[in-house]
């Protein structure tokens, strides 16, 4: 069957980006990224189970500058998804839907993720 030439709703790219839109798609992107990151978690656990040499390899990779960068990014992504997930749970029970509240809760999630990431890495850094 030929596709009907119906008028389409306005293309996504003509919308002005709002914080709430950006955070909404970021929730999916961060969730998907962490799902892929579970491979790292699995690698770490399997190495720990299989012996000191395998574990030393994982630790040297994770403590390289690229490894630390990935772990730092993962920390921010984790706390963002965690904070935004709680924001979603609050929405699920019916609160916080008006635009002002949704905007402010979004800002709060970003601040939470930033602060938690910095605090985590300050503690990790001070412990060596």
């Amino acid at each position: 069957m030929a596709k009907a030439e119906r008028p389409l709703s306005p293309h996504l790219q003509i919308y002005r980006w709002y914080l709430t839109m950006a955070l909404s798609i970021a929730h999916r992107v961060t969730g998907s990224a962490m799902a892929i990151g579970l491979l790292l978690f699995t690698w770490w656990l399997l190495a720990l189970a299989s012996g000191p040499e395998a574990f030393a390899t994982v630790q040297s990779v994770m403590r390289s500058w690229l490894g630390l960068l990935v772990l730092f990014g993962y920390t921010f992504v984790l706390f963002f998804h965690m904070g935004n997930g709680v924001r979603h749970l609050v929405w699920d029970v019916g609160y916080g839907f008006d635009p002002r509240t949704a905007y402010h809760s979004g800002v709060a999630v970003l601040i939470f993720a930033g602060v938690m990431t910095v605090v985590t890495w300050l503690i990790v850094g001070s412990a060596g």
Partner: protein
Amino acid sequence: MQLRTTIGRIRGLGSAREGTGHWKAQRLTAISNLFLVLWFVFSAMALTGGGYAEYRAWIASPITASLLILLIVSVFYHARLGVQVVIEDYVHHEGVRVASIAALTLAVFGLAVACIVAVLMISLGS
């Protein structure tokens, strides 16, 4: 006015024929993830600077092993549910979509089992 048939209403499965099971499981695992992941992050922070022996000793404790297995089940299940929705929304070809979700399910089950076996091996000292 009630447009739905009686049998449709009592089954409560809606047009997607799967009801609210997926949605509820996603929320339930979100809440369990919140506690288990916070516990894991704080524990990992406390072990910073430790090596092979310190991490093995940590997991050897039955409480750690139990919480870690709960975390693995909760996190991998939540990941499966979330990525499934992403696939359902963006993969339009039905065959590719079904195959992708099947591959996702198998991959997540495989990784989760590997992780649980690793925890058990460490905790049972082999």
